[in-house]
């Protein structure tokens, strides 16, 4: 094992995450390489400092009382429900408008070949359900980690 590889694997060694075979190779390398041994010492003391940096938390902040969180959750739920209702209303209106204009277009294109007629109806139909998806996008991205 050379020093580059040893340096890359050092974190796994310190965390006990090396496979047994590699761990032995590593042990042998460290036995014969003072530079890598010094590096291991450095990394271990850096980690000790990082661990020491963990804050001691005593009492739960008042803002995290379950009753307050439940209240917020239910309010958010109610807000979302009413938003969905109004969006549905808007979407319904938009759909009606699109359908009407679609029919007008379709009637105008009555003389054209059949595929054209179906295509224009298809475009109108597929434009109905876009806005509702946008609503829950932000929350889902937090839940699923898509936002990074």
């Amino acid at each position, binding site marked *: 094992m050379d020093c580059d590889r040893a340096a890359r694997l050092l974190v796994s060694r310190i965390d006990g995450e090396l496979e047994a075979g590699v761990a032995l190779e590593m042990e042998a390398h460290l036995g014969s390489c003072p530079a890598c041994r010094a590096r291991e010492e450095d990394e271990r003391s850096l980690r000790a400092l990082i661990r020491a940096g*963990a804050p001691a938390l005593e009492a739960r902040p008042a803002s995290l009382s379950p009753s307050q969180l439940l209240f917020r*959750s239910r309010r958010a739920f109610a807000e979302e429900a009413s938003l969905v209702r109004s969006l549905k209303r808007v979407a319904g209106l938009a759909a009606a408008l699109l359908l009407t204009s679609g029919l007008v277009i379709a009637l105008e294109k009555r003389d054209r070949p059949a595929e054209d007629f179906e295509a224009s109806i298809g475009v109108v139909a597929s434009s109905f359900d876009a806005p509702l998806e946008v609503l829950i996008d932000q929350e889902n991205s937090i839940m699923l980690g898509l936002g990074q």
Partner: protein
Amino acid sequence: LKILARGKSREAAPLLARPPDDQELVVRILAGDDAAFGTLVQTYWERLFRLALGILGDWHLSEDVLQEVFVLVHRKLGSFDGRSSLLTWLYRVTVNAALKARQRERRKSLPSLSPEFDRSAPGPASGSELEMKELGQKLLRCLPAKLRAVVLLREWEGLGYEEIGRVLGLSRGAVEQRLHRAMVELRRVWNPARKEEWLHGL
């Protein structure tokens, strides 16, 4: 009254005997049991708050993020599929919410250290506990948020590489690589011989 009391004690007895496990908690919360949600908050707030605090370095912002996390958890618990442990899932939601909040608050973000810190003769890095704590927190701030999250999950939360990978959506190898990059960065900025400057000047 007696009947009521008897009914109550019969319900309460198994809860006193052992704390409800995570799966049971999830089922009860989904069924609308507010007390079960209270148990979840009480069980996990400390670990999640510490993690958010480590990523954000700001108490008030971390409180906001944790509120957001618990409200989301209450509303979206149905999307927890049980493939990972509940705690892993909670860590995941918290890391994502904290990184998002960090993006939002970029302008107020913590000052990074000047890169001129050289590492000459390494000396003993001992000191009082308070000093260690301060140094540890300052060192963490030197890391970009995504590396910091890996380091925190490892050193503060004690997770293994597999589980860190599940929290962050990374392979085991990618976790190892990020930890290695974090250590390279920390060794680059840290010089024990200039501890006093770290404590007072930064």
